[in-house]
């Protein structure tokens, strides 16, 4: 079997693996309820109080906020999917079926990141449509939508990459969720409140700060730019994947 064929088949198996357990469906449904629910809240508030709507804004601007909820859900979902095999012992048959670990790593990363990122984007698109339904004059211009999809795709994809990487590195669902929460939410908020320059700098360089800056345009430090935020987010995602990849490639299957 050529590596390309093995990768394609491993990818197909990963897709089956994700959607053949209830936890994935539960995550997807919960995420759908939260993101679309906030779409309804934002849309109905904008319809009820038009003075609160910034002139020139579109339904996409409202939907951008729901991207934050999608991001946290996607990081958690990626962690749960990436750690499921190790938490259940399923990594033993998995590595018997796909013993070339580089292929398993690539297939797992690509399928989980693509699936969760697309899910997040579709839900944010749904939220934008709901907002537009409540406030039709905001409009859904294609150009602004494509720009937001690009931005959010990068943010969600980096978040998913972080989740997969942490999951593969720690091999523990609980430890991964705690670490992800610390990096994405608690760390940036807590460190930025401490009266030290170095904690502020540290907060600025955490992935949660990068994501929040790209979504809301605000971060813990005024020094942050779109480029620095993107770099921070991408670097954390890739570093986590490197750590998780090393664990999968270089160590025993489940020890």
């Amino acid at each position: 079997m050529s590596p390309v064929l093995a990768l394609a088949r491993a990818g197909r198996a990963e897709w089956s693996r994700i959607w053949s357990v209830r936890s994935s469906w539960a995550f997807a449904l919960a995420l759908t309820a939260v993101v679309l629910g906030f779409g309804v809240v934002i849309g109905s508030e904008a319809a009820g109080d038009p003075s609160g709507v910034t002139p020139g804004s579109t339904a996409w601007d409202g939907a951008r906020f729901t991207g934050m909820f999608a991001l946290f859900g996607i990081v958690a979902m990626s962690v749960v999917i990436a750690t499921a095999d190790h938490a259940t012992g399923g990594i033993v048959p998995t590595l018997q079926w796909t013993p070339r670990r580089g292929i398993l790593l690539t297939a797992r990363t690509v399928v989980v990141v693509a699936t969760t990122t697309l899910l997040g984007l579709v839900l944010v698109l749904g939220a934008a449509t709901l907002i537009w339904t409540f406030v039709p004059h905001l409009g859904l211009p294609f150009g602004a939508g494509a720009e937001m999809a690009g931005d959010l795709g990068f943010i969600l994809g980096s978040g998913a990459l972080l989740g997969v990487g942490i999951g593969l590195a720690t091999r523990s669902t609980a430890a991964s969720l705690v670490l992800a929460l610390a990096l994405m939410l608690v760390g940036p908020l807590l460190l930025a409140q401490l009266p030290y320059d170095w904690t502020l700098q540290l907060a600025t360089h955490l992935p949660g700060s990068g994501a929040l800056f790209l979504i809301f345009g605000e971060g813990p430090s005024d020094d942050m730019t779109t480029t620095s935020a993107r770099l921070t987010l991408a670097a954390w995602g890739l570093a986590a994947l490197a750590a998780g990849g090393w664990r999968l490639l270089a160590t025993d299957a489940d020890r």
Partner: protein
Amino acid sequence: MITARGLTKLYGSIRAVDDLTFDVVPGTVTGFLGPNGAGKSTTMRMMLGLDRPTSGTATIAGKPYAALAAPLREVGALLDAAAMHPGRTGRAHLRVAARTHGIPLARVDEVLEEVGLAAASRRRIKGYSLGMRQRLGIAGALLGDPGVLLFDEPVNGLDLDGVRWIRSLLRGFADEGRTVLVSSHLMSEVQLVADRVVVIGGGRLVADTETSALLTGAGGPRVRVRTPSPDELLRSLPAHAVAERTGDHEIEVAGVAAREIGDLAHGIGVRIHHLAEVEQSLEHAYLSLTGPASAADAAVATEGAAR
């Protein structure tokens, strides 16, 4: 053919597997025996590339497992029946496996039927008994119709019908010319089905020989005698007899036929309550090899150690 050469695995300072060298040849069932913690599972895991050897190699058909073109079609393995996602159905578990090798999904239903799990295949694995999980693991091993089979304790949790089924399955595979390596702590099972045995203790090879040779090498048939006067009988046994007290009123004797002992007892007026030849069991041979006193002498029974 499965080949282990100088296979060694260290966990920190613990030597789990120590310089193991043996072959598992096609057309035979090879029993893999050893006490708990002897290194059987670790050895099988290294054969499948799950654990990395500290040194040495394990190959299947001349290649490391991960280098096989289509591993599932060449090797079927059941290592740990509990190692499955409990939230997946049995059928979905096998369909994931089938997709990794482009195996038609109809084959999944075939093997489920073969192992007797068809009716339960759409239930989640968390609702399966240990025996059902074992059958599912075996179905996974059979999915690619492989030429090499590795089973770690395959009869665990199986009922009597299941045990008989797995016995005939293993025998059938070997008779078809496939390579079968099976570990089990049930000596009677291994004795019934294995043509060869590889015995390890403390991670080291203790014996690698034909089952019949191991049984013969462990002393051949013995005679069990129950008598109210065992000491008197022991004193009158010929010098070449090897006798052992196995109870207050029971002895076991090797090297002397039952008829001869009966005549001897009659001659000295010792009453006999029970007199029977006891076939040498693999369990006895195994204990004599892996017991602390015998460990040093165990290499005598080893053919493969010098390879």
